[in-house]
């Protein structure tokens, strides 16, 4: 269940972006830089191997923040499913050791869920709620060089493209009887048949994309205008403080690796 919700998250995150310009001011509801900071903070909290009660509380708090962020963009279901998966994970972590023999290993799965659900949910929220133009504006304000900014936008553009091309290729493979239960079932051949057409497609799309972007002035000598405005407001301050609470709690509670 938890793995399914993770994959559902990652596909919806790349397919539905934020509202255009976030109202008239053009200023993002949260600055992309704040969201990136929150992602790092949540990383620290969830991935630390600290097993104390404080640490579990800190992780739950972090999960709560992510759930609120998803609620703020109106995605009630995502907030609920991720929180629920997290809660199930917590229960497993606490009580799996009471199970007899091999079953106690389920606790390991619980740890995995508890550590990764908040992370994946936060990363998905970041992608879901941030427009490409916002992200570019924020990165240029951080004075990141073009050599970093442009590849980043290309990656955002390519994730859904890969998913889409992959679907068509899977269709073709099933139709031609390649796959488990099909005529061709050697795993190596299956991998080759999947990867070669995918690469060829992506290279071609990449070329066409480059041509189109060049003719629309990307990489020219002019200073780029940013329609999206970046800047910090009270919401940014609130989020920054909120994500620092569990970090400080963890550090204060003694960092036991």
């Amino acid at each position, binding site marked *: 269940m938890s793995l399914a919700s993770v994959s559902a998250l990652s596909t919806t995150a790349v397919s539905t972006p934020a509202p*255009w310009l976030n109202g008239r001011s053009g200023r993002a509801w949260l600055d992309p830089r704040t969201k990136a900071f929150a992602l790092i903070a949540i990383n620290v909290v969830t991935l630390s191997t600290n097993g104390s009660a404080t640490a579990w509380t800190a992780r739950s708090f972090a999960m709560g923040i992510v759930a609120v962020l998803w609620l703020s963009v109106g995605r009630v279901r995502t907030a609920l499913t991720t929180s629920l998966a997290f809660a199930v994970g917590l229960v497993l972590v606490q009580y799996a050791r009471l199970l007899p023999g091999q079953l106690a290993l389920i606790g390991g799965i619980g740890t995995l869920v508890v550590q990764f659900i908040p992370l994946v949910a936060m990363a998905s929220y970041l992608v879901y709620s941030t427009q490409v133009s916002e992200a570019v504006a924020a990165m240029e304000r951080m004075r990141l060089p073009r050599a970093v900014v442009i590849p980043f936008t290309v990656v955002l553009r390519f994730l*859904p493209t890969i998913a889409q091309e992959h679907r068509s290729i899977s269709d073709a493979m099933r139709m031609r009887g390649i796959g488990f239960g099909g005529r061709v079932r050697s795993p190596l051949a299956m991998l080759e048949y999947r990867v070669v057409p995918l690469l*060829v497609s992506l290279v*071609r799309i990449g070329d066409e994309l480059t041509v*189109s972007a*060049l003719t629309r002035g990307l990489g020219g000598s002019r200073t780029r205008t940013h329609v999206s405005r970046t800047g910090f407001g009270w919401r940014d301050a609130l989020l920054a403080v909120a994500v620092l609470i569990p970090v400080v709690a963890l550090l204060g509670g003694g960092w036991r690796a």
Partner: protein
Amino acid sequence: MIEVRNVHFRYQHGEEGAGLSGVDLHAAAGEVIVVTGSSGCGKTTLTRLVNGLIPHFFEGDLSGEASVAGRVVADTPPAEAADVVGSVFQNPRSQFFTVDVGSELAFAAENLGQDRDEILARVTESAQQLGLDAFMDRSIFQLSGGQKQKVACGSVWVSRPRVLVLDEPSSNLDAATIADLRGLIAGWKGAGCTVVVAEHRLHYLQGLADRWLLMENGQVTREFSAADMSAMDAATAASFGLRSPHPLPPPQPLAAPAGEDVVELTGFVKTYPGAKAPALDIASLTLPRHGTVAITGPNGAGKSTLTRALVGLDKKAPGILAIDGARRDRKARLATSFLVMQDVNHQLFTESVTEEIRLSAPDADDAHLATILAGLDLTAVAERHPMSLSGGQKQRVAIAAAVASDADVVIFDEPTSGLDLAHMAEVAARLEELVAAGRLVIVVTHDDELVEACADYLVRLEGGRVVSAGPLLREGASGEAA
């Protein structure tokens, strides 16, 4: 605005297309010029010269004089030329750089450093004009091909270039979107822009283009005025290798029964999760057993949903296909159907053409495979890697794989988008060969000229339902002007 004098160009890497050998092009403000000719005539190369992709991106030997808005092409890289020249390309899937519609419409103007308030005003105006204002926050990946192409046109127009270059912009569009495209070009012309369109499909540019250039082997061999072109009949156009210069009357199926031997579809219904109305709703449909069946309809009519369901690829689409009395469920259909995809690159897997065919028929002997290859004119490339072949050859490899398989239902998804007259006729001939071999051939297409050339039976879909279905009268190529 555009001054091209005696330009010669040869691509450094020969496979990228035909070069130019002594081309002249002079275009003034407010002029719409159509460049046409069969595949490989050099028309795409000419558009690449105007937007500066030649010689800056596609490298090669360039000689002669070429300038756009007074700037010498050889000294102006495309990203610098972009404030004057806007470009729209053939493939709607690979022309957007950002992910959401709003960001995309602003993209070119942002790159060019134009004024922010002006960009915002123009983005809003463009979105309304294109009927996309409800889609501003939508992911472009969720739009139809037609809507994507409109976003591409809009994004270019927001930066207000004075020259627009379009390379086969209508290839993947349905009739309604082509009409919208015509409207956009008319607007640009009205605003005093110079528009150069390289196209195979000519009819939608009638009454809009001021001059028509015919290219052959990298040279402009003929020029037609607007009056010449509106008087030209289909037979004359065909003698130049051109597609119909006038819109064909929409094919009308006759109200006649499908005949004795029939194929029956029952219960093809599919509703996507979260959608209110079904994307496909065909309770029952009868098709003839022999002949080519064409399925047409606007973008979003349910054609791709029906295609996936018919081939048995959609696990959640029920339906029974009965052929010669044998009822086929989804799994049976998957084993007995072959889909020739619009992008054939997705379905070629192996390292040689022969291997590719063998994948369909692992037990067939070499002589049998050789016959199939010969029948599709692939003998000379039998040992080549399928990905190294031309688009037309790849399509023939996919057809050969269909022929070699035991699939008796062969479905084609848009097999002629972007093809010139000769190649379209070739595809039509392949379809007829498959029909003659006793297979059920279904072709899903926007191309009315292909329908006229080869379809015996027409099914028109709208909103997931069959709005008309019946046999078509076949009289061969008609030369009447509309």
